[in-house]
């Protein structure tokens, strides 16, 4: 299978802190990749570099053979790389439905549809349906129909999370980057959210990269794992292999425990 996304030698530092050090990874089309690592390991930096929010100090990113390293986030989004956020980024004063409509409006505008001089109601590209129908269909797919007319700011955490991901679907993403889709969500809800997201994504045929701390979720949904530590990728393998890797076990899976052990040992000595 051909790589849809190709990151070559990405480096990024913030002063003395190295957030990415020689990150190289090729992502295959239609694959599902889990990004794991402790906080500050460089997962979100990796996502931020792909989506154009951060520019790497060195290295290139290619998407479908095209160099996208220097593009602005909105240009990258228009190419079909969409992201969700660890903290949902919603239009707080708008209802769930209006949130979707705002997103669809951008899709229409970028396609040059529904503008000042156009007549009639345009069909949303990729969906071939009128805007309101697209909004309702996506809400339904994510189980959000009951929240349609409620303001985003009063929605429960898990629903906000789903709406944040649902918003990315209006543009028919080819690559979807999910930054901790299940963080801040109860343990029972985690699998429900992931099931819902993955079934929606599979129906659309998108490549998925997701950041996740729960190893059960990772091994269930990811086909491949990229384990980050200290700005580097220390393992790149299917979950069964990667999660058994001694370095991954030491620095990622059991990372926090390991550090506590070490600190206690020092104190005892």
């Amino acid at each position, binding site marked *: 299978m051909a790589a849809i996304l190709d990151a070559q030698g990405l480096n990024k530092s913030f002063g003395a802190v190295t957030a990415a050090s020689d990150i190289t990874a090729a992502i295959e089309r239609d694959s599902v990749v889990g990004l794991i690592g402790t906080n500050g390991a460089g997962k979100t930096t990796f996502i931020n570099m792909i*989506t154009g929010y951060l520019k790497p100090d060195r290295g290139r990113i290619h998407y479908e053979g095209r160099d996208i390293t220097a593009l*602005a*986030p*909105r240009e990258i*989004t*228009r190419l079909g790389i*969409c*992201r969700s*956020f660890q903290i949902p*980024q*919603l*239009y*707080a*004063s*708008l209802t769930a439905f*209006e949130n979707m*409509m*705002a*997103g669809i*409006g*951008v*899709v*229409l*505008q*970028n396609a040059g*549809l*529904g*503008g*000042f001089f156009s007549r009639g109601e345009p069909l949303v590209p990729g969906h071939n349906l009128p805007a309101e129908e697209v909004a309702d269909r996506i809400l339904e797919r994510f189980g959000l129909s009951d929240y349609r007319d409620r303001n985003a700011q009063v929605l429960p955490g898990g629903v906000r999370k789903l709406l944040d991901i649902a*918003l990315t679907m*209006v*543009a028919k993403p080819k690559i979807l980057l999910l930054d901790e889709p299940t963080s801040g969500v109860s343990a029972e809800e985690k699998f429900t959210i992931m099931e819902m997201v993955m079934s929606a994504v599979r129906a659309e045929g998108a490549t998925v990269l997701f950041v996740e701390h729960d190893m059960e979720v990772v091994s269930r949904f990811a086909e491949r794992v990229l384990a980050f530590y200290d700005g580097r990728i220390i393992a790149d393998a299917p979950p069964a292999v990667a999660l058994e890797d001694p370095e991954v076990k030491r620095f990622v899976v059991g990372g926090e425990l390991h550090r506590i052990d070490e600190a206690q040992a020092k104190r005892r000595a």
Partner: protein
Amino acid sequence: MRRDRTPQTLVLILAAILAAAPFAPQWTVFLLTVAIAKGLVVLGLMILLRCGLVSFGQALYYCIGAYAAGMLGRLFQVSDVFTLMLAGMAVAAVAGFVLGFLLARYRSIFFGLLSLAISMILYGLLIKSETLGSSDGFNILPSTLLGVRPPDNWVRYLVLAAAAVLAFVAALLVHRYLKTPLGRLAPAIKDNEIRVEYMGASARNAIHVKYVIAAALAGLGGGLAATTVGHIDPDMAYWTTSGEFIFITILAGTGSVIAPFLGALVFGVIQSIAFDVSPNTWQMVLGSSLLVVILFLPSGLWSLFTRRKAS
């Protein structure tokens, strides 16, 4: 969804103005024309306010529009109402386009104060420039319409008619614009620009477009004010003028393109009455009335109409 009757309402209002104004007393014709001039400026402010931006210096474009109209008369003896208004609009739009590159980068208080600062620069320049009449300003040629100089008792009516027609067109266009994807993006920009960017749109470009539209409308209003009043001076750019426009914007509310004109008319009426009743404390009356509106109609006068529809 509620049916949108704005275009029909606008037609009715225009027809009513054109039909009733010949029989109305001159002072009401004047009041209405000034209200249309200010309403045009406020229409622009409404577009900006919808995406969370308050321009404390919109008088800049109002003044630019007025001076553009005035200079056209002074240098080329142009006195046609339409030409003067459209010239004011064009010059203000160009100024807004240039300054938009700077201002579209700023938000909240920085946007507000920067726009205020720029308008005060223009005020300062006008005060110092003797060729433009310094602080006295200068008079505008008596208005003509499409090359015809109307009899004196008809001038005010014809200016009002021309203003009403242009304001009608402007309101219709803005109404349509607000329904385009770019126009609808306003509340999204107000709420979350990060998301707007990650949906594939540029908030800065959208704001730049809105800023130019607002400037053009203010210029149109300024050109109209110049021909109506017959005199222009640097006070048109002074911060109190900008303050008045914001006052009307808040009074009116952002619910409809009709609201700014209604707000400007109510403002004009309250101002006239207050001036008549208590010449020394008319600002107090005006301030108190705004206070009452904010307390009881936080979404402005326009919420009177939407509320009734909702119930």
